[in-house]
């Protein structure tokens, strides 16, 4: 009964929203004299206009992600890694399974394996390119990391989990890499406070380029003939590896064989 009431309320809200949209734009739209959405917020225009001067990057989206709204992204990274840690802790104790059935016969056919080798290589190259050019062209750490996450998924399906674990792709290794990169992000975000204290200048968390009220730049915004975006490059590379590694770990634990999972959950000091 309560669920039905909830559904009715939500449907009513959606109808009200639709009426609001049509009423708000409708009259202007039907006159056909001007576009209903020929404006954006003044804040958005300020970000586009100031991106090169304030951040040292012509790419306004990456500038917002890691500079103008850097604190938002810092905490969103926190939410992301909390979700990943939640997933991993649900499967704790199971990561040692899956070595059985490893070897040349494991996984799919030779054709699939060969194609997967080529594809995984291409995915890694393309995602690294997306991440490393984040301050110049559309792209960045999050997009590159999400693209990189496909590579371990493909490898697990084609070669089998055991083959990967045998070659040293272990959860502990991947998690160590991820934790290292998250630590780098946190250190670079907090380092302006220390630098400001040591040099006696005003600086704020996640500062990038010098501002009139905070006169020290953390890293240069330009080098010879390209944009570097100051700390943007560091954040993008660290986030790229961290996101890719986190998803690789999640896919590895999600692919634990069913018998092993039930074995762990059935007793042995783990599970329930």
């Amino acid at each position, binding site marked *: 009964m309560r669920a039905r009431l909830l559904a009715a309320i939500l449907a009513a809200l959606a109808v009200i929203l639709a009426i609001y949209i049509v009423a708000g734009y409708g009259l202007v739209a039907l006159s*056909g004299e001007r576009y209903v959405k020929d404006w954006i917020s003044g*804040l*958005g225009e300020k970000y586009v206009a100031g991106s090169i001067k304030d951040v040292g990057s012509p790419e306004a989206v990456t500038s917002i992600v890691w500079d103008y709204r850097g604190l938002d992204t810092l905490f969103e990274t926190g939410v992301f890694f909390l979700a990943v840690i939640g997933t991993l802790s*649900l499967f704790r104790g199971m990561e040692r399974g899956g070595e059985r059935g490893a070897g040349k016969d494991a996984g799919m056919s030779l054709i699939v394996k060969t194609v997967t080798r080529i594809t995984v290589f291409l995915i890694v190259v393309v995602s690294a390119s997306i991440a490393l050019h984040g301050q110049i062209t*559309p792209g960045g750490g999050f997009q590159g990391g999400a693209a990189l996450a496909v590579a371990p998924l493909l490898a697990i399906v084609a070669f089998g989990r055991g083959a990967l674990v045998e070659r040293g792709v272990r959860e502990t290794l991947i998690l160590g890499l991820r934790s290292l990169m998250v630590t780098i992000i946190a250190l670079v975000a907090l380092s302006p406070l220390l630098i400001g204290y040591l040099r006696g200048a005003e600086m704020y968390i996640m500062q990038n380029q010098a501002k009139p009220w905070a006169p020290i730049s953390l890293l240069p915004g*330009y080098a010879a003939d390209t*944009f570097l975006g100051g700390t943007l490059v560091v954040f993008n590379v660290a986030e790229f590896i961290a996101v890719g590694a986190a998803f690789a770990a999640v896919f590895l634990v999600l692919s634990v064989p069913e018998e092993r999972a039930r074995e762990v959950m059935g007793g042995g000091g783990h599970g329930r």
Partner: protein
Amino acid sequence: MGAEVLYANLLYIASLAVAAAIAAVSLYGVARKPNMVKKIIMLSIFGDTANMFAVLLGYRMAPRNAPPVIPVKGTEPLVNVTEYASIAVDPLPQALVLTAVVINLAVTALMVALTIQIYRLYGTLESTRINRLRG
């Protein structure tokens, strides 16, 4: 000019209305479907619809519009930056959406993991039956 503008306006309003409709359907699914996997699918559709809505709100319709990336050669902008900002689409919703997409993926993975564990423990995915189980 007139017909073209009218067509673009109707298309924009229709996109917003479709986003609202998909949101309503997916929330109905989350509330009313008893199967956990269907709930997860509906929730991820709802998240994507919310993202689409945010990007639509940042769109700028104009005879000339541009992405929020300033064209440069080396470190010199090829255009007047202030003028370019007056035709570019809004970068803020795009920035918020790109992090939201990745976080959605991680949260979906968490929900899938929880659902797998529920199935292993109780042997069912019907939320109405899981509610009645004790222990």
